[in-house]
């Protein structure tokens, strides 16, 4: 039997992190922004069936960049965790913090276990509160750490550049149409600085809207409603954007 080469633990971890980062970088980026009435998720997604964003519980949404089968696995795990919690105790006992902790544990364990390949995913768990101050956004990189974010966050391939762009331009109390416009602008900037157009059909947009009368605040924005919001840009008033979110049945 031949002696295996010695690899230092630091090197092994660095290799795994490099592997995961490369996997994530291949996927398209997505952004999560706070706006006056909630939190909006925007990403480029050519597929209508494979969602990057999803509802976890009443006030909690989930966004993921990276490998689909891996984050789908985590998403279903999250839905199970939340539903079981809510059924055993109460709906109020399901929190984004608890969920983010579970995800961090899972990702961390997988990342450091030698037998498994690290997950090539980066997650965002967001919870909309009664007021913008109570909103919570957590970013979970591939290694199982948790980053508490405010205002805006970007994950995926081009994340650093996009979040830099967003940090400069995002402000509190934006309307949905303004936030959406900013998100699309940030996503359509290429690595080399040039801009390209992302058509509405290739956008996946969802909101956690605190003004929704139902308990479940998550809602996808698609079709006509989305193009209307995009046209509205940042030019119009907040009230119109709200009316848009209210109208139209759920597409889930």
């Amino acid at each position: 039997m031949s002696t295996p080469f010695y690899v230092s633990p630091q090197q092994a971890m660095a290799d795994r992190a490099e592997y995961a980062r490369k996997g994530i970088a291949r996927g398209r980026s997505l952004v999560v922004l706070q706006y006056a009435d909630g939190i909006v998720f925007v990403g480029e997604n050519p597929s209508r069936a494979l969602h990057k964003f999803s509802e976890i519980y009443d006030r909690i949404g989930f966004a993921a960049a990276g490998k689909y089968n891996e984050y789908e696995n985590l998403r279903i795990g999250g839905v199970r965790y939340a539903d079981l919690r809510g059924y055993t105790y109460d709906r109020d006992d399901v929190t984004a913090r608890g969920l983010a902790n579970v995800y961090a544990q899972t990702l961390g364990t997988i990342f450091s276990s030698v037998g498994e390949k690290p997950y090539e995913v980066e997650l965002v768990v967001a919870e909309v509160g009664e007021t913008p101050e109570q909103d919570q956004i957590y970013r979970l990189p591939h290694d199982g750490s948790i980053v508490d974010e405010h205002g805006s966050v970007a994950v995926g391939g081009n994340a650093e550049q996009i979040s830099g762009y967003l940090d400069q331009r995002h402000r509190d109390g934006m309307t949905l149409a303004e936030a959406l416009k900013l998100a699309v602008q940030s996503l359509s900037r290429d690595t080399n600085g040039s801009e390209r157009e992302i058509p509405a059909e290739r956008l996946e947009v969802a909101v956690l809207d605190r003004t929704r009368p139902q308990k479940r605040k998550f809602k996808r924005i698609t079709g006509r409603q989305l193009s209307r919001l995009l046209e509205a840009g940042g030019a119009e008033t907040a009230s119109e954007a709200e009316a848009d979110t209210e109208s139209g049945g759920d597409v889930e």
Partner: protein
Amino acid sequence: MDFLSEHQPELLPGKRKLPPVQGAIEAPHGTTIVAVTFPGGVVLAGDRRATMGNVIAQRDIEKVFPADEYSAVGIAGTAGLAVEMVKLFQLELEHFEKVEGAQLSLEGKANRLSTMIRSNLGMAMQGLAVVPLFAGYDVDREKGRIFSYDVTGGRSEEQGYAATGSGSIFARGAMKKLFRDDLSEAEATTLVVQALYDAADDDSATGGPDVARRIYPIVTVITEDGFRRLTEDEASGIARSVLERRLEQPDGPRAALL
């Protein structure tokens, strides 16, 4: 559900060991639930009384619950078990919707409820039966539908109107005489309140509108816009107008003889 039975089976109603029984168990029972379809939707309503033997256990119990956006369950039978069953049913519909990204069909929901009632058969044999009424708006067929059940989980779709619980015989009689297939939403909500009034009139376990305590029947409407529960003002408005007419005609509206 599968996940739950694997990991925490004790949380599921059907999986518990039954205690040995001496005599009948006294637990609060819910009474009358009625449902009526109208073009464009369905109305589901229930009275507010829970009884335990000859005692009124609760005057203001709520027995009609939304199951999801487009359906609702009204429960008759052992209140504690029924409420738990509804909670699990709601959870399952929501869980399915989130995991699969699409809602169950109305048939699928009705079948699922059927299995849940069947799993409660052991309890039902000991007198703790749960017999719900399930009503929903079928998004594919664009109409309101009603499903009724028996204790063994047998499911049957009802045309037009249905009732369950101790006062159901009287409520069904009333609805039979008042039902038409061209009812408006407002007429349908009045019809269910009339039927509940008649049930309360002849069945001691069903509660009528309680004007003194301001307790009125729960009336819910499901249309293509989703589930909506009438506000207390709306429900009391209907109940009061029914009550006012009954002061003149205690037996309610008369049907033609021929």
